[in-house]
């Protein structure tokens, strides 16, 4: 069953028929039993009737002609704006017309030469393949710090061939093709 405090805020919507039919039926059923809510609904209808006592006003006779004149003026302004844009475009076109004209007449041989040069440069760039550096993957190049590089360097000592006894290496990490081998010693 509906309570008065729930029905009260709904009365305006009920008077305007702005609710589902089943809610209208429920409120109608409540109003039949509750005199205070029925009185409230009656007061809302009465207020509405009072509001409708106001006469409606009519626009003056020159409302429509005035409005249409103003609308037409807007159309003219818009057209003028469009024509102004066109005028700017035309001016730009005319200012660059000399370029077009000279290209058509005098610039044609130069343009042909320039385009041939462009084509030649494109072709030469396509055909030219620069020699790329060899991949640096040896240990000396890969070494990060100077101390590492120093460690990798080989020290040579010039020894007369007859006194040649044993290779003197500062490091034995790497075998260089320049290091005299045992084969040389035998010789």
């Amino acid at each position, binding site marked *: 069953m509906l309570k008065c405090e729930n029905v009260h805020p709904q009365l*305006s919507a009920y008077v305007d028929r702005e609710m589902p039919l089943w809610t209208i039926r429920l409120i109608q059923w409540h109003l039949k039993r509750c005199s205070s809510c029925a009185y409230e609904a009656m*007061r809302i209808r009465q207020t*509405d009737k009072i*509001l409708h006592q106001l006469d*409606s006003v009519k626009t003056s006779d020159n409302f429509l002609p005035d409005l249409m004149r103003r609308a037409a003026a807007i159309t003219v302004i818009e057209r003028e704006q469009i024509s102004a844009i066109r005028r700017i475009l035309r001016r730009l076109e005319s200012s660059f017309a000399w370029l077009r004209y000279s290209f058509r007449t005098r610039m044609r041989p130069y343009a042909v030469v320039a385009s041939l040069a462009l084509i030649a440069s494109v072709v030469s760039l396509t055909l030219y393949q620069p020699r790329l550096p060899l991949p640096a993957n040896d240990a000396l190049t890969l070494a990060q710090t100077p101390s590492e590089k120093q460690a990798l360097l080989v020290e040579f000592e010039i020894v007369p061939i007859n006194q040649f006894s044993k290779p003197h290496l500062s490091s034995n990490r790497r075998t260089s093709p320049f290091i005299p081998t045992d084969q040389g010693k035998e010789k």
Partner: protein
Amino acid sequence: MRTSDEELMMKCRNGDMSAFELLVMRYKDLITNFIYRSISDYHRAEDLAQETFLRVFRSAARYEPKCRFKNWLYLIATNLCRNEIRDRKRRNTAYLDDLIPENEDASYLELMQDVSQLPDEVYEKKERQIIIQQTIDRLPENQRLALLLVSYQNLRYDEIAEVLECSVSAVKSLIHRARQNMKTLLIEVGIGESSHAKV
């Protein structure tokens, strides 16, 4: 068959001035009445009604029939009314028009020509209308607009929600409060205090 407002607006978008004229003919009185009730100034209401239609005309090129034309039109009019009410509040202006009702003499003459009513009755009716309008003016802005849209323009709650840019439940609450306030204010001024009030 009556051409819909949206169709007329699409024609107007393509530069058809007669379609625009037809739209104005359909809504000019409704919009002028709505603005007049909101701001209580007939001449300004006419100006704002013209401005409403001009805004429609200007934005015709961008018009997309997503919502109803009528709601869109009322939305523009409502925004203009709000601006006008706020401007007046900011300037704190008491217009002479507010003190002297619009076209008072003309409307009295019109009423006097009606021989079915006695001069006393005519005067009483006019006085009553002035009081009612002043009572409407005393309502808060949103309540006033919602009440006018539902009572005079016969808009549905969902349409009012679209115009006032709020939810339907908010509209329901606004209208309920507006009616409650209106009832209290009318009792204050001596109208509708009894069930025998002239209705």
